[in-house]
């Protein structure tokens, strides 16, 4: 690791996380370089958001503005949203349709495949100027059932290898074939470090979410799959609500999908993407670490292209009320993200307990309700950041 990175002594016990990791601006800056611009894939969009050639969506990767563009040639690309002349932000709309992107400053124009196609006054440009060298800067892009990932690092492993054992749950979330249709967005900022946002666990659900208890809505049999590179995948069977009478309109929690075995899926991809399918809600959460103290989350909801009008209507009303920043079984999560952040402004370590089998080294099997399933992710984070464990040698310097 390069010298001069932040220094942090990581606890020796594998279940402990130093709280300062959520708070230190120097660590946040290093995370941008090592994680967000480093060797990871970052989910930025689903093809269902930009289904037609010419469609685009702007996003932010780490702090870098990007354009996810569906080219007239049918290829989806991710461009840095910065004019290759003097760096002006090229596109300001959150989405739209364009055959070309024109920078208003000096009217350079780029085709939606990134080529520079117009630059007024080029005869008087620097002697070595060549239009072909000034196309929009592109990131590497890969898709998984329409889910569009980008990486700024040329050494990031191929997408499917990087996704590893999450692929089956992820495919379930993406409707099996990825043919999704956008229903809309809920966008919100949480006063929380991105790592607290992305650290929801398998232990809390029946405890925090009183709604599950009041509705007598138990999770069915399930599993938690954890990868060495920081991903988690939950597959849980859906049990029907036992006390639907608690609601005047129990149709809100109805399940109209075909296979209850396939009812509930959550995939958390390192560093901060959360994708979930619960009942008939298909929800992709794209996160932007706007600062050490704040995380912006775009909750995008989808239907399947083959849904009939009745299922579509049901998905819209269920999606609008169930899992977002004021959803009936998720508002409490949002409140926790912010409280973890405030509470972390205190000395010491946060310690995981539920499902912790040993303290000296990590293991690989986790039950569906173990919070310990988050520990391999934390260890992966620690290694990517170059923080040595106490007793491991080294000075904790990255």
């Amino acid at each position, binding site marked *: 690791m390069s010298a001069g990175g932040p220094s942090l002594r990581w606890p020796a016990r594998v279940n402990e996380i130093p709280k300062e990791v959520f708070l230190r601006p120097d660590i946040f800056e290093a995370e941008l370089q090592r994680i967000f611009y480093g060797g990871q894939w970052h989910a930025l969009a689903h093809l269902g958001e930009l289904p037609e050639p010419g469609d685009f969506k702007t996003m932010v990767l780490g702090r870098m503005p990007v354009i996810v563009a569906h080219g007239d040639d049918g290829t989806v690309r991710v461009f840095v949203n910065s004019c290759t002349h003097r760096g002006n932000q090229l596109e300001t709309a*959150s989405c739209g349709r364009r055959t070309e992107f024109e920078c208003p400053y000096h009217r350079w124009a780029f085709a939606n495949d990134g080529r520079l196609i117009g630059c007024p006054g080029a005869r008087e440009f620097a002697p070595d100027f060549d239009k072909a060298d000034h196309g929009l800067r592109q990131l590497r892009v890969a898709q998984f059932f329409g889910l569009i990932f980008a990486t700024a690092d040329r050494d990031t492993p191929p997408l499917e290898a990087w996704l590893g054992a999450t692929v089956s749950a992820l495919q379930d979330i993406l409707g099996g074939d990825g043919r999704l249709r*956008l*229903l*809309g*967005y*809920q*966008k*919100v*900022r*949480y*006063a929380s470090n991105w790592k607290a946002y992305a650290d929801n666990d398998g232990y809390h659900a029946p405890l*925090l979410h*009183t*709604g599950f208890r*009041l509705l007598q809505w138990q999770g069915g049999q399930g599993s938690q799959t954890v990868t060495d590179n920081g991903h988690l995948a939950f597959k849980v069977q859906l049990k029907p609500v036992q006390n639907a009478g*608690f*609601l*005047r*309109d129990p149709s*809100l929690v109805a399940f109209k999908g075909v296979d209850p075995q396939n009812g509930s899926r959550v995939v958390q991809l390192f560093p901060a993407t959360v994708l979930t399918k619960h009942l008939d809600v298909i929800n992709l959460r794209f996160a932007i670490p706007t600062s050490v103290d704040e995380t*912006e989350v775009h909750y995008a*909801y989808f239907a399947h292209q083959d849904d009939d009008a009745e299922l579509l209507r049901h998905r*819209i*009303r269920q*999606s*609008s*009320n169930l899992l*977002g*920043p*004021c959803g*009936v079984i998720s*508002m*409490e999560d*949002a*409140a*926790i993200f*912010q*409280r973890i952040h405030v509470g972390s402004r205190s000395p010491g370590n946060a310690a995981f307990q539920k499902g912790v089998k040993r303290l000296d080294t990590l293991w690989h099997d986790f039950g569906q309700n173990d919070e310990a399933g988050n520990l391999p992710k934390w260890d992966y984070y620690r290694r990517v950041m170059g923080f040595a464990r106490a007793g491991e040698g080294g000075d904790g310097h990255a």
Partner: protein
Amino acid sequence: MAMPSDAGLGAVDALQQAYAAALDRADMAGWLACFATTEAAGYVCIAAENDARDLGLALMLDDCRARLEDRVTFITQVWAGTFQAYRTRHLVYRTGCRPGPDGTLDVTSNFAIMMTPEGGSTTVLAAGEYRDRVVLEARGARFLHKRAVYDTTVLPRYVVYPF
């Protein structure tokens, strides 16, 4: 086209005041009381971005009276004790009022919601437009449908109470 009478406008404004006052004291029964008792009564709170693109996905979508009642149950019983308390001040002014079908009134208003978390300072939670269909009942005006379309592309926090 018959324009709303002064009495009609007065009833509409009284309803807007009652609505804002109920939310500003976190009185969810008072919020519910602003809606017509018919099963068709509804409330939708939706981002302008979705609304402009005809995307139906909302932040809150109560398309029947039963859903309105369930929202009150969740806020007052299920979520109790899990969120940081915050209070609001709704600033609302009417921008239009014209006759709707069957003696109803279609009312538009602008809103801004100031938010003060317990122990914190005051910021803007959201700004937008109410698009309401109001019925004049014997006991006063009530919302048949209320649609809060918020301009705030990215909300500054999670949300507990309706807009």
